[in-house]
């Protein structure tokens, strides 16, 4: 599964994307967040509880209870500021 980070989260994590293979008990976006925090202090800071960020699963906005089953790409990003 590919995980991508955008805007300030990319800088805080220290990389734009990474391939990860979480264990079988990581079934939702929320599970993945908790699991990713352990990978580095940058991950822990970017994905900290209470930080304002959202997620997308396979390029569609997803809440943290969305299941990962079959997902190929999960992204984390701060609130959108386009337009």
């Amino acid at each position: 599964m590919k995980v991508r980070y955008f805007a300030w989260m990319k800088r805080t994590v220290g990389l734009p994307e990474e391939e990860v293979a979480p264990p079988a008990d990581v079934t939702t976006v929320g599970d993945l967040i908790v699991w990713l925090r352990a990978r580095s202090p940058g991950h822990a800071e970017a994905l900290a509880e209470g930080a304002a960020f959202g997620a997308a699963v396979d390029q569609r906005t997803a809440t943290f209870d969305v299941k990962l089953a079959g997902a190929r790409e999960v992204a984390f990003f701060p609130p959108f500021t386009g337009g």
Partner: protein
Amino acid sequence: MTVCVQEADFDVGAELARLTDGNKRIGGLAVFVGLVREMHVREGYHRDKVDALTLEHYPGMTEKALEEIEAEANRRWPLEATLIVHRYGRMEAGERIVLVAVGSPHREAAFEACEFLVDWLKTKAPFWKLEETPAGEKWVGAHEGDDAAAARWEKKP
């Protein structure tokens, strides 16, 4: 229905001509052009001179998100033509960022759908603004006003 996500600037006149040419059912064309504003004023947050900004986006998801927003506008209003052109990359103050254009037989529908598209793309399309100010680079925080503007289009259950 057309969505373009591009680094290059766009030609407003040419885009609008292409959108309406040959369609004689359009009575009103409502258009919005968003530009990089030199002064970034936000009460209680920061008030810095913005010289330029860089718009990061999520290739692939951006196009999907804009197409969904455009399709939603076409479901809600009787539209003849819709266009969203959104740039990414570095832009200096005064440069165009985004073009939204809506053609409809009726001007009310054109105006409403155009405002809807602008409000929704600000909160539902994956773009992030990094501003260059004399004090350094700064990621723009989400604007509460934008959330409120987008929320007024949410359908009541």
